């Protein structure tokens, strides 16, 4: 009757840990697992010494921060995707489809085009502007999608696509006109992290923790809202307030991901779907499982991005789209229509 089984969590967590280890190991230099453990052990016990071995430098200065940044990004995209899908009761809702990601992207592009007096200022201010722009965009989409006081799935997606195209066009225009480094924005737009080292990790961490943390408390709310606004209100939920909290938390989470890792599609769309097919319709489970699975998915995609045309790297957004789209179609075709 109840489902307290921990197995899906353990399996997903195991996949995530394996993906993180692999992500630290794989690159232009492959570091064997036993060396990784040795370096970690030395790092923990403080016995690295004055002469830091090259593997340790690669691990601590490049691979580990990148791994954590991507894990956070994947977790952010998948958890906000799951929240939007649940909130709008629409399997197509994800941060990109409903426009919040491109809105946040526009905010980030504008923030990047400004010359900030201090480097750290840009790190912390970009996500704030991205969040504000993303929030305005999603609220605009929700308002535009309202016809006769209800917003159907179709009108929501149509409004999202229209607003997305618009904000993306404005983003491109701002990028062309900006005096900043164009390549940085281009790479960012294709879903590649432009910053390396610990700076983006530290920049993203507070927003991601706050946003994902808030979303993880909304599982029960989303369960009730699966019955529609009217029934949810009749069951005693303050629907308007709860919906606003989900939108704000999901938009903050999306903005954190977009600001530091660029435009990465499909993670927020397919991860919750796969989780739902494997673990059922309960959002108290879908949200945490999507968070873990999204992190694992993006890490695996990034590992692929590093090796397909090594030593060159492919932006990870290209890999998620190339692997995600066929997988998504496969999932759609083998599932029963009522589950999608």
């Amino acid at each position, binding site marked *: *009757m109840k489902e307290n089984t921990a197995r899906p969590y353990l399996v997903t967590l195991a996949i995530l840990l394996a993906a993180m280890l692999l992500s630290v190991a794989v690159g232009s230099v492959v570091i064997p697992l036993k060396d990784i453990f040795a370096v970690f052990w030395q790092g923990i016990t403080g016995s690295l010494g004055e002469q830091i071995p090259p593997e340790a430098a690669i691990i601590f200065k490049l691979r580990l921060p990148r791994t954590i940044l991507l894990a956070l990004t994947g977790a952010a995209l998948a958890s906000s995707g799951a929240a939007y899908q649940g909130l709008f009761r629409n399997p197509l809702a994800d941060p990109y489809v409903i426009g919040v990601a491109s809105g946040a992207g526009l905010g980030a592009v504008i923030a990047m085009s400004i010359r900030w007096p201090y480097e750290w200022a840009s790190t912390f201010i970009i996500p704030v502007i991205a969040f504000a722009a993303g929030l305005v965009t999603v609220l605009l989409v929700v308002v535009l999608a309202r016809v006769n006081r209800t917003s159907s799935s179709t009108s929501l997606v149509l409004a999202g696509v229209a607003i997305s195209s618009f904000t993306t066009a404005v983003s491109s225009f701002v990028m062309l006109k900006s005096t900043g480094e164009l390549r940085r924005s281009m790479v960012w737009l294709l879903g590649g992290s432009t910053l390396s080292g610990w700076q983006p990790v530290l920049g993203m961490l507070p927003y991601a923790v706050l946003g994902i943390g808030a979303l993880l408390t909304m*599982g029960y709310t989303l*369960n009730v809202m699966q019955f529609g606004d009217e029934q949810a209100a009749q069951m*005693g939920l303050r629907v308007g307030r709860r919906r606003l909290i989900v939108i704000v938390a999901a938009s903050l989470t999306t903005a954190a991901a977009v600001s530091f890792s660029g435009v990465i599609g499909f993670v927020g769309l397919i991860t919750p779907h796969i989780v739902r097919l494997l673990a059922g319709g*309960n959002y108290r489970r879908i949200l945490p499982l999507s968070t873990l699975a999204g992190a694992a998915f993006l890490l695996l995609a990034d590992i692929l991005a590093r090796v397909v045309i090594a030593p060159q790297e492919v932006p990870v957004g290209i890999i998620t789209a190339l692997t995600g789209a066929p997988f998504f179609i496969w999932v759609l075709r083998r599932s029963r229509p009522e589950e999608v």
Partner: protein
Amino acid sequence: MLELLDVHAGYLNKSILQGINFTASPGEVTALVGPNGAGKTTLIRAISGVLPLQQGSIHAFGKDIQTLSAAQRARMVAVVPQATQLPPAFTGWQTVVLGRTPYVNWLGNLSHRDETITRDAMRQTATLELANRQVGQLSGGEQQRLLLARALAQAAPILVLDEPTTHLDIQFQFNLLADVRRLAEGQNLVVVMAMHDLNLVSRFCDKVVLLNDGKLVSYGAPAEVLTAERLSEVYRIKIELHPDGKEGQFFIMPTLD
């Protein structure tokens, strides 16, 4: 006790309900009847508190429902909605347990009491065996019983049903209404139910509220309210009543001139 005093309600500037007055008592089943568009569903939305009143008031056991918070209101009034699309991937248990929403915390953690009440609600509606089944694979009758169980899990003294027998075949219609009757008497619930089928109303309900164009036409026992003359006028076709043998019961039949 559910009291409606001069209830006006509608959408935007348009009033659909115009001055509805009646009182429904515990242990009794009150039917709302009337042609399509008479205001049955609007009245149910007003009683459940999701549609603000334009004028008048609704009191649930002395409390004005418009002054209650959503959770307080849900503890007074539980609604069985019209047959709707249920989330197909939910299990029966997940569906029914949401009736505990006005009692649980933000995270939805269930107390032992919440689980006991949910299980009781499922036992009373014979839905325990559906607990682990996916809702999408259940029949319309089973889904409707789950919605009734969910409303019972809400443990509210007032139970409101919006055309609960629509889309059900006669066996399920009969069983569902027999369940509702039994619950009204057994738990001393105030039951208000929008209904289309006047014959079922005359068999299962204690009181009838006949609505037409948002106004209350007549209120009382079925035999008093459901007269051939009044029904012919409200439904605008010729309707005859045929006694069916038992005392006070009759068939209501539209007839050709």
